[in-house]
């Protein structure tokens, strides 16, 4: 039986969080739970809830100056919960940096633009299929 998949969304832009959460809940056919976090720190605090997928914004300190950066949060996740798939989100201008994060253990990255929601939907579906395969050997 297909299980529930837990997704964490981390972004300091409330609009993006709302849009992504709504979009995923509507469009992903699997049983998912989406939790949203405005700060990386809060996300790291709740890794014990065993998220399967973490969508992480690269810049997290627009509002709170001293907030942890996306790179640091990624490092924390890789250390504490290496099995979680981390999808980095970044603007077009720091795409190169985003690619760099792949080397630091991110699963994939998304450029923030008009297409990012569709792209995320695709990635989430892909990851869930991979997980199913791993777990059931289908």
């Amino acid at each position, binding site marked *: 039986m297909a299980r529930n998949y837990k997704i964490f969304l981390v972004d*300091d*832009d*409330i*609009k*993006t969080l*709302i*849009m992504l959460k*709504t*979009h995923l809940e*509507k469009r992903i056919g699997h049983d998912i739970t989406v939790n949203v976090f405005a700060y990386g720190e809060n996300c790291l605090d709740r890794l014990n809830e065993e998220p399967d997928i973490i969508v992480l914004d690269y*810049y997290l*300190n*627009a*509002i709170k*100056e001293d907030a942890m950066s996306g790179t640091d949060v990624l490092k924390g996740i890789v250390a504490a919960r290496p099995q979680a798939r981390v999808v980095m989100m970044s*603007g*077009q*201008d720091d*795409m190169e940096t985003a690619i760099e994060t792949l080397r630091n253990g991110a699963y994939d990255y998304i450029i*923030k*633009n*008009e*297409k990012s*929601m569709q792209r995320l939907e695709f990635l989430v579906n892909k990851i869930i299929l991979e997980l199913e395969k791993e777990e059931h050997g289908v």
Partner: protein
Amino acid sequence: MLAPLAAELEYLKEEYRLLKQENEALYRQMVEVEKKSLEQEIKFNQLSKASFEGVIIYNEDRIILVNHTLCRLFDYDLDEIKQLKIIEFIAPEHRKEALAQAEQTNKDWFETVCIKSDGTHFPARIKRKFIPHQGVDASVMVITDLTNDKRVEQELIQSELLYQKLFEESRDAIYISGVRGELLEVNPAALELFGYTREEMLSMNAQRLYGNPEEREKFRQAMQKQGSVSNYEVLLVKKDGTEMHCLLSSTTRRNAQMEIIGYQGIIRDITERKRTDELVRAKALAERSAVMKAQFLANMSHEIRTPMNAVMGMTHLLQDTHMSAEQKRYVNGIYSASEHLLVLINDILDFSKIEAGKLQLESIEFSLREVLSNIADTFKFKVREKKLDFILNIDEQLPPVIVGDPTRLTQILLNLVSNAVKFTEKGKVQLDVRLFTEDKLNATIAFAVADTGIGIEPDKVDFIFDSFSQVNRSDTRLYGGTGLGLTITKKLIEMQGGTISLKSKLGEGTTFLVVLKFEKGAVGSISNHKYTLSEMAANPLGRLRLLIVEDNELNRVVTTDTIKKWGKDIVIDIAENGEEAVKKIRKTHYDLILMDVQMPKMNGYEATQYIRKTLHKTDLPILAMTAYATTGEAEKTITSGMNDYISKPFDPKKLYQKIAKLTSKKEIVHLDNPDDMEKISEKRIEKAETYEHITNLSFLEESVAGDEELKTKMLEIMINETPQEIALMEKYYHEKNWERLRAVAHKFKSSVVYMGLSGLKEVVQNIQLNAEKHENLDTTGNLIAEVKHTCLLAVQEMQEELKKLKKN
């Protein structure tokens, strides 16, 4: 005595008995005959009833029998008709003639006119025969009504007349000939066509009319084979020997045995028509070759312009290096010679475009003063060099903005002024611009270019605007030029509905007067800031990442090195063709693409299409660099999705301007110049007012996919957050906290996307980049002001939208 009496009586009795017997026999016989006769009569009547002819049987003048058709024919009752005499059937005025005809024994019929009971006449044929009738001599008369026959006959006569008339009056020549070609009949048109008399023609053979005897033979064979020909083209000859191209349509005449006994036909002279056709063909050919010529010239100009770009560009770069005075002089020489060469190429190209009707005039708003001051700038050095005075007088009343083609107006004035400078050795060149007439919409402006030069001989004045003419052949050597300048100038003026005229006195000087009408433009509609060279140096383009797509190595060097001088933070990447460019654009963010049009592998248009459609980079500015200087090419660059174009060889000033305009440094604002600030803020307000909606919520709507609750939530957040985020940017800008400004600007980009303010994306991006690189920090404040202005309008719109949503 009794006995003889009795005997007498007995005899008489016997006599009576015999007589009675005989009488009875006779009676029986008579009854028999009468019975027969009755049968016959019945039979006759039955027969004659069905007949179409009237039948009368008569003796002497007494009518014995008539049939029903006769009664019908004459419109009498049977009883009435029996009272008539035969002669009374004939119309009175024809009776005499009819009697005369009837007496001719050799003829058993005649035609006459009969008369009906009501007095109407009808033509009739009467046949007569003597027949015995019941033992008496009788005649039978058969009367046929000829009314219908006569009509047909009349029609036949009429149609014959018609054909005769056609034959006589036809404008085409008509002939009838025998089988060997002897002419049997010709109409007046044929006589006129060939110039013979009727007698001459009827005594000659058609063979003599042919220019080529073999054509006659061919025609004859075709006729025998096909029986007729139509529009058969032959060469015929008039009496005076003139040859004519004619069309011959003919049919054969045959006898009852179907043997050909001759021909009849129509001849039409098509010499004129053929000549017209030939002219039409020649015209089409000439037009096609003119188009080919124009195409050839356009291609040639492209071929010449490409190396010219390298020559001029590199000379330009060389001028900025350290050189000895001698070297400098040589380099300046190369530069002015190549400039001159470019003018010649442009002249030839313009001329061919005008000839081919391909030159199109623009209709845009522009500042007349700017055009005039540019012209004055152009000649500043040249005039100083020749120790001439250059005087520019501008009428105060001239409208500041007019609508027209500034490039072509500049070309007209440049040509006239450069001629004036060229042909003047001492004294002055003066350009006077006056408002001629003016109404609400239009202004007619007079441009006078006067010099104190060599002047033009009076007999040459008329030819001065002709192609390839200079006043003297020797002038060409002395003064150079294609001799096309004034022709082009005149054509350009005429294309704009203007006039050019001149006054000249040999040895004293020449004055050209140009009068052009322009529509008046709106004041303040022009915002294009023109950069001078000093401004270019003082205002580096800032941090830019450009991609130059160009297959020609020399041109790559020229373009790269030219741009590099405009700022130390300009990063330039190179792609040698469209395919390579697409690969690079996929990987790297560029502020601008400079795209050559003609390239191997993917060309500029294809690459642009790919970038726009497949890579979805709709906002990425693409500047086309084209060596094709035709209007068509320019349009093509724009329609293929490029933002603007510059023609090679490019003027560095123009390139700077276009790059500045296309990258977000749209205006280099001089904070110390309040006029500039005003101009820009004016423009922004205008921009906001032009569009009904500055926001485009379609992305948001698409994203919420009909979820109104979600849309409401998003709108509320944006209405609430946007002013806060802008306030933060302002705050950090004033605190000079660049790192924070960068972070907020970065975040703000997603708001801009949700609001659909695509034009603002670049501006915010630049705020972020400036803050990150600590560049153009003094102008960043203006960018923030622009963002604020637009976003506050956007918030208002979103509030309206929210109200609407909540109402529902």
